[in-house]
């Protein structure tokens, strides 16, 4: 082993320029690998931060009402389907609050009254999602306060805070009054107190925040709540906390991951395409090392023949070439990962960026994996050339 390492390094240093080029080529592949890892990881952090930062981590709401069986008729079922008009509400909501607040990892609990409706301004009509909430809670889930583009976020009885997209489509500004009509056909006249822009189209284009007391009138729900929205101190615990809340309250509790199947799907797809690119980078590394070593076995054919004649075994020849591959892989891996780390370091973590910059996360460069995979790939790449070298016929190589 010692001696094959000596021969392998001598071979590599004897053709210094070529070896260097090979190592740099490998390093470039590793750099791509590291960069892709950091980018995909960073994008995930950014997306989760942007999305999950503005939504509840767990939603606690009344259980789905099962269809009620009306009458047992042989061969047929007669049932009342879920009414889409009448939302189920938590009638004795206040009783659940201390239970939810006492659940581990829960940091914020906000009660909401939800409903649908329309806003009308002259000829313009827009469908809206009405959220009735205590004035103090308006920024507890989505940070409405710091997303304000006009007015204030204070929820008084006759004011509404609405999304910027909605304001635009209705052509209204702060201080203007319009009519809001709920799904229960109750109408109110309200004044726009503030306009916000979260950057999430679904919210910006339809959300109307009202003081909960105004919302009770509008939605004809004198008591109870539609749901509690919960924020956690640890995002990743959402599913287990939801489980916990279900057990403690008997209510339906849904984690953000399960509310946002699309987000999760998007993240998975992103990770998969990242893996594909990383896979290609590895394949390129393997092909590069294999072809360089194969070329070297050709060039050193007669030397290999001499070594065999002098009593070097086939295994020895294999070891010499596999070690060359391993050295190239390790050197290229460390160089590429090192350069990757250094070039990623200046980028602030994605959750700290205010947007605009490249969302790479240097903590997610997967440096160890990059080096280990490159080393493994390099060793795999050298097996065929090494085998070829070990099969060289000393008589042919020595020549007449």
């Amino acid at each position, binding site marked *: 082993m*010692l*001696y094959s390492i000596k021969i392998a390094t001598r071979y590599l240093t004897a053709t210094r320029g070529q070896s260097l080029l090979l190592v740099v080529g490998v390093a470039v592949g590793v750099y791509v690998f590291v960069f892709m890892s950091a980018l995909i990881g960073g994008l995930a952090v950014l997306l989760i931060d942007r999305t999950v930062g503005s939504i509840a981590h767990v939603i606690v709401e009344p259980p789905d009402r099962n269809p009620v069986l009306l009458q047992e008729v042989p061969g047929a079922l007669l049932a009342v389907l879920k009414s889409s008009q009448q939302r189920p509400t938590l009638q004795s909501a206040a009783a659940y609050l201390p239970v939810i607040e006492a659940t581990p990892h829960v940091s914020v609990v906000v009660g909401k009254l939800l409903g649908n409706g329309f806003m009308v301004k002259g000829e313009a009509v827009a469908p809206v999602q009405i959220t009735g909430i205590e004035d103090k809670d308006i920024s507890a889930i989505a940070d409405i306060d710091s997303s304000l583009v006009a007015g204030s976020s204070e929820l008084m009885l006759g004011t509404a805070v609405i999304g910027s997209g909605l304001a635009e489509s209705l052509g209204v500004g702060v201080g203007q009054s319009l009519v809001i009509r709920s799904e229960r056909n109750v109408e109110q006249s309200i004044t726009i107190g503030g306009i916000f822009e979260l950057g999430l189209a679904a919210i910006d284009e339809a959300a109307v925040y009202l003081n909960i007391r105004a919302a009770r009138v509008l939605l004809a729900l004198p008591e109870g709540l539609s749901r509690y929205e919960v924020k956690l101190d640890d995002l990743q615990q959402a599913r287990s906390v939801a489980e916990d809340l279900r057990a403690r309250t008997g209510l339906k509790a849904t984690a953000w991951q399960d509310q946002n199947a699309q987000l999760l799907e998007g993240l998975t797809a992103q990770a998969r395409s990242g893996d594909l690119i990383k896979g290609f980078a590895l394949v390129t590394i393997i092909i590069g090392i294999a072809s360089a070593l194969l070329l070297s076995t050709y060039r050193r054919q007669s030397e290999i023949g001499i070594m065999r004649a002098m*009593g070097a075994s086939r295994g020895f020849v294999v070891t010499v070439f596999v070690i060359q591959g391993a050295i190239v892989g390790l050197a290229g891996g460390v160089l590429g990962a090192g350069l990757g780390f250094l070039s990623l370091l200046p980028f602030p973590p994605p959750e700290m960026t205010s947007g605009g910059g490249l969302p790479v996360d240097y903590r997610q460069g997967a440096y160890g994996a990059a080096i280990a995979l490159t080393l493994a790939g390099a060793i795999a790449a050298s097996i065929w050339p090494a085998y070829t070298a070990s099969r060289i016929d000393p008589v042919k190589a020595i020549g007449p």
Partner: protein
Amino acid sequence: MNEVPLVEVRDLTKDYAEGENVARVLKGVQLTVAQGELVALLGPSGSGKSTLLNILGTLMRPTSGSVRVLGQSLVGAEDLVLTEFRNRHIGFVFQAHLLLPDFTALENVMFPAAARHGRERHTDRARASELLDRVGLSDRRDYLASQLSGGQKQRVAVARSLMNAPELVLADEPTGNLDRESADRVMQLLIDINSSDGTGFLISTHDENIAARCQRQIYMADGRIADDRR
């Protein structure tokens, strides 16, 4: 003498496939060489000298017949067994000197021992140094092989062939590529080693002058031994 012969060859044939046809290059060779003999192998080009030496050196397998070196049958043995056998018992000197160009003279000489032990031992370094001294190249010890002249390279090759103190050295036209002076020097070296160490030599050559300095001359013609003189 009761001693086991260095080389014992019976009914040796070797065929080469040439496209569709098979060419018989060795056509029943009988040969016995005693330990410590210095033998010249003569004959026209294409008579089969190199083929015979390669078979004796376990670098090539015979088509039929028996080949024994130091009493060991080498027909049908595994590659690893043959490799180990030639590492311990057989030295080679080729016409085209064939050193490892990226290694120093000393490292080249040491190679057979390093390949055997898996590392360069101090004792082997000392012996290699001594051998280089013996072939008159102690001042070139740390030169890369690629920096040596033809005659110097061949002397390094001679030193290398002796590294593991083999009983048999096979030299295929060792002076073929050298000028008169270098050729004489290399030949004298082989003769000296033979008389001082008792190493057996089989030296193929076209040069009658060189052959005349050996104890025995074997003439090959058309794949057979045509004459055997002492």
